[in-house]
């Protein structure tokens, strides 16, 4: 075995230069070379107690796959990851590793933790580029399962069941499979060809994907059982976007992050041949501090905005976004207006000419400055308004990225499906809902969370469905 690499810092991820990438939609991070991957792998101490695995929601055998990289056996590394994760090329890119596996890494105590996410991405990309083995469709076991939604939880659940011989149909409301991976996360962070490849793999395994079917409308959960499905997994995702309830949110130029990102990502309005319009250019304020806010801000920048602000009511330390996304956003020139809370969105109104085309469009946003007070129940310091600190920023577009509330479609058409006070579907440790043979996972259960936790829930449910239907 090669000698351990005791460098305190990890191999730097090659990226497109910030000044260049701010004007294109190509992927920001370019990925490790084979040499960089082997060098980074050599930083892993192969700890016996494997703290990193504890930090992984799907319990990837991290030291084991990293050992294979050290040996140059990249396909071997892929096969180890593949035992636990069905979407490594996705997770290597979008997982918040710094709060999961990498947060537990022993190397992180003194220096930087091993770049586990970067290595996962390297292995998945290597496999997608060089491995030629087409997935083999297993023999059918005669059982049929319906999966609602083709986002991370649905794809994972479908994949795990298909590998065991289940005949799986995935019902997707939109016209393209992938859920948030397609409509939410931008191309520059997760190229859509990677998602398409994952979907193709499932199809090769025998999974049938029906787009343009809204469960709760086109078909109900009960009808799925009548059609012969023996179990249903609901991975319908988060729901309706939240707004602040302040004046001016109905003005033209105010978007939810979901709408703004859907226009750009799903409907491709950043490309010249798309028929879907989106506001481009001008000054943009994104309200919120999560990954979705970063995605919206960086998308606005790439669409040609002259200035983009992130407006967040707490400080840098409380930003819920992945650290890397915040760093990338700062490098690209996004301006962070922290400890700031919007109080009103202001619009143009020409009282002398009601036909003035500028009427009803955003011209600015009034904000108030905040300071951090006492910690709340979750331990996060509560932002408190500073009296008489109002000010206005000049903007043309405001993007609200402050979370979502559950979608009512499935709940309202599925009798006996219990939800909690926030509207999330209630499940037990197996992902089973209050309805017999109906399972759920992902944001539909937890509210807005991460791709990997949704995948984890899909895996748990797939396992439970297999146990239940094998009886």
């Amino acid at each position, binding site marked *: 075995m090669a000698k351990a690499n005791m460098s305190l810092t990890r191999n730097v991820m090659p990226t497109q230069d910030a000044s260049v990438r701010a004007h294109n939609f190509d992927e920001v991070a370019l990925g490790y070379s084979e040499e960089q991957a082997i060098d980074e792998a050599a930083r892993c101490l192969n700890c016996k107690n494997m703290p990193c695995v504890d930090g992984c929601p799907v319990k990837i055998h991290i030291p084991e796959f990293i050992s294979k990289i050290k040996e140059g056996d990249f396909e071997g590394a892929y096969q180890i990851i593949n035992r636990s994760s069905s979407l490594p090329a996705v997770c290597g890119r979008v997982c918040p590793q710094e709060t999961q596996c990498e947060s537990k890494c022993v190397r992180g105590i003194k220096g930087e933790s091993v770049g586990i996410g970067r290595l996962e991405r390297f292995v998945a990309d290597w496999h997608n580029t060089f491995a030629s083995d087409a997935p083999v469709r297993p023999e059918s076991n005669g059982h049929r399962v319906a999966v609602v939604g083709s986002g991370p939880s649905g794809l994972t659940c479908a994949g795990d069941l298909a590998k065991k011989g289940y005949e799986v149909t995935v019902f997707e409301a939109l016209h393209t499979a992938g859920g948030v991976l397609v409509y939410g996360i931008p191309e520059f962070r997760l190229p859509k060809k990677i998602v398409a490849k994952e979907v193709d793999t499932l199809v090769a395994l025998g999974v049938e994907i029906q787009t343009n079917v809204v469960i709760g409308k086109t078909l109900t959960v009960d009808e799925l059982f009548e059609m012969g499905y023996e179990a249903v997994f609901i991975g319908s995702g988060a729901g309706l976007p939240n707004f602040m309830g302040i004046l001016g949110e109905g*003005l033209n130029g105010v978007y939810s992050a979901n709408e703004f990102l859907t226009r750009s990502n799903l409907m491709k309005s950043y490309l010249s041949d798309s028929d879907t319009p989106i506001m481009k250019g001008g000054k943009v304020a994104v309200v919120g501090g999560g990954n979705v806010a970063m995605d919206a801000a960086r998308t606005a920048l790439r669409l040609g905005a002259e200035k983009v602000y992130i407006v967040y009511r707490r400080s840098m330390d409380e930003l819920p976004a992945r650290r890397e996304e915040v760093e990338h956003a700062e490098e690209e020139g996004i301006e962070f207006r922290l400890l700031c809370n919007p109080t009103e969105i202001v619009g143009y109104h020409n009282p002398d000419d009601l036909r003035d085309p500028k009427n009803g469009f955003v011209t600015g946003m009034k904000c108030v400055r905040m300071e951090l007070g006492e910690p709340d129940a979750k331990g996060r310091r509560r932002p408190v308004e500073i009296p008489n600190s109002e000010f206005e920023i000049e903007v043309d577009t405001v993007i609200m990225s402050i979370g979502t509330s559950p979608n009512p479609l499935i709940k309202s058409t599925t009798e006996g499906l219990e939800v909690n006070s926030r509207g999330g579907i209630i499940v037990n440790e197996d992902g089973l809902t209050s309805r017999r043979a109906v399972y759920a996972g992902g944001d539909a259960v937890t509210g807005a969370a991460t791709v990997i936790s949704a995948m984890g829930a899909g895996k748990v449910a797939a396992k439970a469905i297999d146990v239940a239907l094998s009886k």
Partner: protein
Amino acid sequence: MYKILDKKILNPTVVQLWIEAPLVASKAKPGQFIILRVDQTGERIPLTVAGVDKTRGAVKIIYQVVGATTEKLSHKEAGEYLQDFVGPLGVATHLDGLKKVCIVGGGVGCAIALPIAEALHDMGADVTSIIGFRNKDLLILEDEFKACSNTLRVMTDDGSYGERGNVTAPLREMLEAGEKFDMIITIGPLIMMKFVVATAKPHGTPVTVSMNPIMIDGTGMCGGCRLTLHRNGERITKFACVDGPDFNGYEIDFDEAMSRGRMYGEFERHAHDATCNLFKGEVR
């Protein structure tokens, strides 16, 4: 892909299509809508269901050519296919318990009002229909309305057919003469619906309006279709795709809805011109 079974030109700018979509046809009720995409690069547009034929598994849509997408759609012929067609979306119009109803339709909105009038007629309700158009050339569905209405008033802005004037004129006349409707259901341009509400207000007649804001997914994800409602002195946000498209007309902030409808006006004009030029080029 979804097959166009047949196509009929109803007037110079209004087209009727029957689309093969058995799952949608098996569920769709009056007042619900579908979302379609003409082709791979197309935008998603919502259109209200104008009728269903369960035996053929087909859904009828009627649309006016106003922008690039409807222009493209108008060049599709029977036997051709649409890229995407999803539904039925939204909540069906609540008709239970209604015995005497006034349907007020404007322009292409009459196409959506018709299945509601027919459903009410089939339920045995007394149906008064007021349908309005800019002029005689734009008149659609008169015979169909005649067949399901106890009373029918046809209005044109220029008096070239039926009576001259707005749809609100006969409505006011009837209400002032003491007609008691359980409900007025109105579908058409926002400005018309706003004035229908204003006309009904002094008489306290309930008004249901069918809203048609800009939408993308239509399933309660993007929030683009949000409307402001004024209820008990509070401003509340509702989403036309999952909470509507029908709303209590007295609560809707029509001015905001009209303003929001113009958000992409300029973009749409350019896109429509470009699409028209494209088709002209093909003809040449």
